[in-house]
Structure formats: structure tokens, C-alpha cells
């Protein structure tokens, strides 16, 4: 375990926080996990991320680093002697960053809107869009993995972390809507990858349980219904 003063402000359910935790685990860096309470923001969070006021925030030797993918690259660069997270070739790096940006800017907002969709048929259409995105990642997998088990090749890397952090949420959506977004026929590579990723030592203790995420989704739905009725 590398000794250093690392704190991570986060929450168990957040895929973005999970990314930072996986990266720290890959590098065997010990850290203090400061769990935020749902519905409120701590003084430390507001002080260390005044611009966005969001988790995750990594505090390393007193300095704050914000935005999950920025944190992951920072971790890779600081603990450079550990297993590498970003690919070494500039083109492979650009490809990994491209897909991570796609996930954050296009795919995840669609997935997130399933829970709050108002019209009757909207969740179905949104789930379909999410499914199409997953198919694109299946395609990207063959290009990035180059025949190996992870997007990063033999080891889990940047895109494994960026996409894998959504697995819990994806499985919760599958369960709650009776659909399969990663399966044997449509996404055979991702199905295998999902199992390998979930059981990876750097991942398994920080991947939220599907059941707990389903419970949380129900709690949030009740909360939203209550506040819209008041």
C-alpha cells in the first residue's frame, strides 16, 4: 500500500465516484473515503469543489481534483510506477477518451432520464437508445481489446473503468424494466467482459449491488413523487 494523504469524497451508489475508487485500487493507493449523505452536501465538498459542488472530489496532500475522468488521469500520472490505466499509444488514448466522452455526454444522460420519464412510452424508447449505445460499445470492444479480455487489453484500463462503473446501474435498469441490455446474442463480448470486470480485485468491493441500487431507485422515485405532489 502506497502511503500518501488521499481522501475521496463520494457516495456508494455513484458510478463516477466508483471510477476514482477503481483507479486508486489498481494503483494500490490507500485512501480515506468520506461518504456524503444523500440529499445534503458537506462543507468539505462545497469548499473543495466550489465550481460544480459535485462528487467525486479527490483531495491529495490538501489539493482538490474534480471530475471523475480528470481524477482517473491524475491518478494514472501521479502513481506512474503502478499498472498503467491509459493506453500508451496516443491513438489508442484518443479512442478510449472518445468513448468515455460519448458515455458521459450522450449515453448516461439518456440512461438517467429513464427514471424521470413522464410519458407512457418514453421509458421504452429511452431504454432502446441505451441498448443501441451498448451495441456501439460492443463494437468498440473488439477494436480496443485487440483480442484480449478488457478494453485495456490484458489489464483493465481507462475505458473499462469509464464504462464498467455503469454496470451496477445498467443491471438495475434491466431488473426494473425486465429487459436485457447486455446478453449472449446482441453483446457476447460485453457479457464476458462484464463478468471479468465485476470480479476483478480492484472492482468487486466498490461495485454497488444491483439489489441496493434498485432499492435506492425506488426510494428516489417515492421522494420525487412526494415533492411533486406537495
Amino acid at each position, binding site marked *: 500500500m502506497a502511503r500518501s494523504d488521499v481522501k475521496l469524497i463520494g457516495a456508494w451508489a455513484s458510478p463516477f465516484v466508483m471510477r476514482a475508487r477503481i483507479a486508486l485500487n489498481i494503483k494500490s493507493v490507500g485512501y480515506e473515503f468520506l461518504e456524503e449523505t444523500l440529499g445534503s452536501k458537506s462543507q468539505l465538498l462545497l469548499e473543495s469543489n466550489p465550481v460544480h459542488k459535485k462528487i467525486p472530489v479527490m483531495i491529495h496532500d490538501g489539493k482538490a*481534483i474534480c471530475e471523475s475522468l*480528470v481524477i482517473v488521469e491524475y491518478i494514472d500520472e501521479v502513481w506512474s510506477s503502478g499498472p498503467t490505466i491509459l493506453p500508451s499509444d*496516443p*491513438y489508442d*488514448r*484518443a479512442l478510449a*477518451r*472518445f468513448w468515455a466522452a460519448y458515455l458521459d455526454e450522450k449515453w448516461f444522460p439518456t440512461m438517467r432520464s429513464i427514471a424521470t420519464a413522464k410519458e407512457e412510452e418514453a421509458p421504452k424508447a429511452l431504454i432502446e437508445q441505451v441498448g443501441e449505445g451498448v451495441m456501439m460499445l460492443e463494437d468498440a470492444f473488439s477494436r480496443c481489446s485487440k483480442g484480449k479480455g478488457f478494453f485495456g487489453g490484458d489489464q483493465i484500463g481507462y475505458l473499462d473503468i469509464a464504462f464498467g462503473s455503469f454496470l451496477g446501474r445498467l443491471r438495475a435498469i434491466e431488473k426494473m424494466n425486465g429487459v436485457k441490455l447486455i446478453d449472449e446474442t446482441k453483446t457476447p463480448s460485453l457479457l464476458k467482459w462484464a463478468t471479468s470486470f465485476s470480479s476483478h480485485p480492484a472492482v468487486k468491493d466498490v461495485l454497488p449491488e444491483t439489489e441496493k441500487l434498485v432499492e435506492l431507485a425506488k426510494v428516489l422515485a417515492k421522494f420525487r413523487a412526494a415533492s411533486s405532489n406537495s
Partner: protein
Amino acid sequence: MAGGQVTLLDFWPSPFGMRVRLALAEKGVKYEYREEDLWNKSALLLQMNPVNKQIPVLVHDGKPVCESLIIVQYIDEVWKDSAPLLPSDPYQRAQARFWADFVDKKIYDLGRKIWTKKGEEQETAKKDFIDSLKLMEGELGDKPYFGGETIGYVDIALVPFYSWFYAYETIGNFNIEAECPKLIAYCKRCLQKETVSKALEDPQKVYDFVLILMKKFGI
């Protein structure tokens, strides 16, 4: 590897395209510029960026790189022997990435709202836009550029939007310089560099283009 055939698929008024033009100029990279008609996208563009179908796309030895900031990082990593765009210290790099991401999240979206929305929505966008620029002024501090003594990643991310400020001001009926004099002074300082003045488009031209867009979209 540096060298090889470099083509940029672009659209002249795009601030995202300007970022790439500026990065290539800073590195002294020779490239072929291809103007795209966004209402009639070329087969090459659709082939090179099938996911987003957007410019800019950098094609290096036949392989496409998409998303302006990803392209700028790629350029920095491939042509690494001249004019580094990102700092070498990991914490400084994280700060640079954070602020470039901030420009993407705020400046573009809010700027767009200023010329596409009216009434309350437009007023809110104007206020948030100014607040965002003020935050960036704070980050700039006393440095000549965000990159320090030389232009860097955040400068490249931000300064192309200066081409659009005149359009935002005229359509939104407000004065950016009055609210953010430091930021405008900074933009003008950047424009004194030949690479910047060549990469950025004339604000009047951009404004005329926005008027055409507004007519097209019935705004």
C-alpha cells in the same frame, strides 16, 4: 508518430474547429483543411465520425480522431517535441483538464442559449454566461495566459469563443467587456499572437453567419 498525412474536417465558424486549427498552428504541423457543409455532410465525414457525425475530425494517416479537446490532447502527445500544450506537473494538468471541461460545459451551451432563446431564458443565460467568464477570470489571475507564460490547453479551449462574443453581445444586447474587462484584455492579448489571429474567425463574419442561422431556424 509525428509527420504523416494530416487532414482536418472542419466548418469555418466552429469554435471547436478553431481549437484544432490553433493547436496545429502552435505545433507547426502542416495539414490539409477541408471545409464541410453541415447541411450536406460529406461521405468522408460520415465515415470518419459515424457516432456523432460532427466536425472537427482530425484524420492522421487515415485514422480519425474526434472531439475537439481529445484531438488537441492527441496533437500534444504526437507532436510532443514542440510547444507543449499541457503542463508537465500532474496536478497542473488536472487543473487544465478541469477548466477546459468547464469551458465545454458552460461557455458553449450558455452562449448558444443567448442567441437561440428569448425573454427569461435568454436573460438567465446571459447572467450565467457572465458568471462563468468571471470564474475563468479568477482562474487566470495575474498570468498572461492560462498556460502561464505561453498559450496552453485552456487557452486553446477558450479563446476561439471570442470570435462569437460580438454575436452574443449584439443579439443578447449586453456588453461582455463591461462585466469582464480582464477576460477581454486577455483575449486581445492572445490575438496578438499570429497563430491565434489566424485560427480565429472575424467576429463580424461570425455574427453575419449567426443571423443567417437564426433566419434558417426561425429564431
